[in-house]
């Protein structure tokens, strides 16, 4: 009677012997359901142009959500992403005359990574609570961005190199989507096969036990926040390129949308669990929700309301994800 198999992540069991990567997480059901609902009831949703649009929006979100996922795995939370993306855009535009488009974007990206590293140092070395630390850097980055441009957006002079991250294509694939795929692949490699990913799981699951097992918890945490900053930096570069300007209020909802994507994906905010596929489906769900709100002509403000509801539902359901998976398995029999 006792079966030899216990799922080690909440997810659908799939066929016996299927590799873990191929076993879809429970959120895939939610995502698929939402997709079918949108196709059936939302006008103009199921067109090629719209789907590509959804994927474009989702791709930026996805890159940044990969960073958020690292922080959440560590048992932390990142609120500073939106402000640091705004700072990145402002730094980029400010540095543009001196460094050119590539150098400017690189400088913007570097500033995001730096903020991530500072967060990591404060959380890891000084053991300050992540909520407070990242709220603090959010305010500082936001203030610095406004100060640098005097509060008003500054346009960047148009150039091909500058607009490539947002509008370019490689072999017909839009660059943002390519970036998202690469980000997911990189995160998957780190989490499933890399030593650093394993260490993040350990620190997130039980930091005290991690220290006593001989791990360098400070370094692992700092590195995690810095890597999260690197993911956010890629997203910030694409965003800056898209708006072609330095905007001190570029993406205020970015942290909430990425946290929402992770929560909906089923990552427990207590840390220690989660994989990339969960993040991807969480991101797609958020992007479809946002898109549907626009297409059915609801006020855009509804995006946040719906997102908030989705997050609460996801966190409320979180302990029951496993139950959902079990239900699906029973149906499948």
């Amino acid at each position, binding site marked *: 009677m006792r079966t030899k198999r*216990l799922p080690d992540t909440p997810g659908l069991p799939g066929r016996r012997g299927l590799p873990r990567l191929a076993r879809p997480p429970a959120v895939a059901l939610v995502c698929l359901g939402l997709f079918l609902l949108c196709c059936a009831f939302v006008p103009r949703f199921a067109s090629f142009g719209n789907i590509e649009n959804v994927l474009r929006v989702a791709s930026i979100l996805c890159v940044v959500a990969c960073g958020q996922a690292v922080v959440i795995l560590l048992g932390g939370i990142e609120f500073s992403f939106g402000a640091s993306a705004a700072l990145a855009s402002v730094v980029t535009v400010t540095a543009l005359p001196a460094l050119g488009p590539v150098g400017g974007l690189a400088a913007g990206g570097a500033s995001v990574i730096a903020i991530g590293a500072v967060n990591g140092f404060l959380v890891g070395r000084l053991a300050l609570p992540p909520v407070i630390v990242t709220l603090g850097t959010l305010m500082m980055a936001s203030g610095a961005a406004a100060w640098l441009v005097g509060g008003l957006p500054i346009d960047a002079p148009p150039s091909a190199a500058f607009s490539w991250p947002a509008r370019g294509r490689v072999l017909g694939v839009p660059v943002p989507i390519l970036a998202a795929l690469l980000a997911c692949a990189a995160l998957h490699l780190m989490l499933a096969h*890399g*030593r650093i990913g394993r260490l993040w799981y350990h620190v997130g699951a039980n930091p005290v*036990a991690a220290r*006593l097992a*001989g791990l*360098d918890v400070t370094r692992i945490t700092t590195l995690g926040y810095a890597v999260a900053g690197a993911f956010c930096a890629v997203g910030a570069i694409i965003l800056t390129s898209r708006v072609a300007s330095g905007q001190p209020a570029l993406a205020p909802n970015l942290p909430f949308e990425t946290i929402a994507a992770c929560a909906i994906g089923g990552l427990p905010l207590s840390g*220690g669990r989660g994989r990339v596929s969960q993040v991807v489906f969480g991101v797609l769900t958020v992007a479809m929700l946002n898109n549907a709100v626009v297409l059915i002509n609801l006020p855009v403000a509804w995006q946040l309301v719906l997102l908030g509801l989705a997050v609460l539902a996801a966190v409320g359901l979180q302990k029951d994800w496993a139950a959902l998976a079990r239900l699906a398995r029973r149906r499948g029999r």
Partner: protein
Amino acid sequence: MSASDDAPSGDAPAEFALVATGIAKTYGATCALRSARVALRRGRVHALLGENGAGKSTLVKILVGAVRPDAGQITFAGAPVAFGSVTQAIRAGIVPIYQHLSLFPELSVHENLSAFALAAGGGLWTGRRLVEPARARGWLNEVGLDIDLATPLGSLSLGERQLVEVARALSLDCRVLVLDEPIAALNADEADRLFAVVRRLCAGGAAALFISHRFDEIEALADEVTVLRDGRTVIDAAPIGRHSREQLTHAMLGAGVEAAPARLSERAEPVLAGRGLAAGRDGRAGIDVTVHAGEIVGLAGLIGSGALSLAATLGGAQAGPGELSVGDASFTPGGRRRAAALGIAYVPADRHSEGLFGALSARRNGSVSALGPLARLGWLRARAEAQAIDPLLRRLKLHPLVPEAEAATFSGGNQQKLLIARGLAVPGLKAMVLLEPTRGVDVAARGVIHEAIREAAVAGVAVLVATSDLDELMVLAHRYLVVREGTLAAELPRGAARAALLAALSGSAAA
């Protein structure tokens, strides 16, 4: 399977405080309970025995309302009940005392004692949030604690905290007291106080359910015993004394288990050494300890003596004065990372908060200290990891033997085996420091863990075991170091009489 015939089902229902029959519970692929039955008589102390994994913890969780059973019936005070939460069960008078304390270390003793009154609600703004000091003091007196109500709970010893938890139970109209391994953290004196309180409650008509692994305690306290094996009741409410210890062990395991005597290894070169250490935060510095290759040193001390603290210091887990060395390399107290790199394994006393990665698989729990050699250029080699860890899990008889299963899904004894496996997997293992290595662990797992410790010693590892369990000390250690009030009070050779050890522990006799 074979529930004995003296199942008290025919008796008058008023005699029973709580009866649970046909209880079944499945977690995922693991069947925790198949058909369990337990019947608690008023005024009696009922012991629940079973190996880890037999379903004791699950049954207790069901009785106290923390978990809902998949099948079965629970009758409380003659009427069928289905508690939806622990709060409901507590209001009805089923009061749990957990193995893992459910107190608030940041709050004062007074506030902790008031927790149930606060949870009962309503009183948030009435200004009478805390129970009257006189009543609170009365409860403390009943459990034999004489401490100031304003004392922060965190400053008390583990044993004292447990007694506070029992004192808190007195604040309720307690009809059924459920004690999940309450003695593990108590010294003999504290245990006696607890026994007295439990008996007094029972004399007043309450029933007590008492979960323990130690026959001494069960025989001292319990009137009846129920034995679980593999999720089934195999001995149902038999009076204590009807079955011998061997019969009970046999019922628990389905097979007899012998405690083999420790094999003495040759004395060899010193491996783990500490100079000028302190036992506990208040202890004076100046303790020297040396553990030789192949030697098992037992560090004994009552709760609060500083023994565990001294052991943690030797493992590099706790900062303090003094210096440590392993072989020629030195490290500082609190330098756990360097200690691990030098080949010192450390098994903490509190496996849940300090040891286990519940969300990670059994194998990953075992490999965490060995990731260096298992990685190449930052990549983990999955096959090498399985080859390094799985044989250890097999040797420790992990049950179920599923290295991919999450650590949190295993029973307590099997979780402890994961920590032992982690220690054995430390690359270049030279010394092991183990704190309470078999606390709350069943007989079979205890035997396996002891065997693994002995094998490591025979292979030349220096082993230091800190334990408050005298039996463990005496079957395992080659010599005993006794810590009392933060000082190294005595050193006794293997074979020293139990009485001498007890005297050294309590400081009662002239040394």
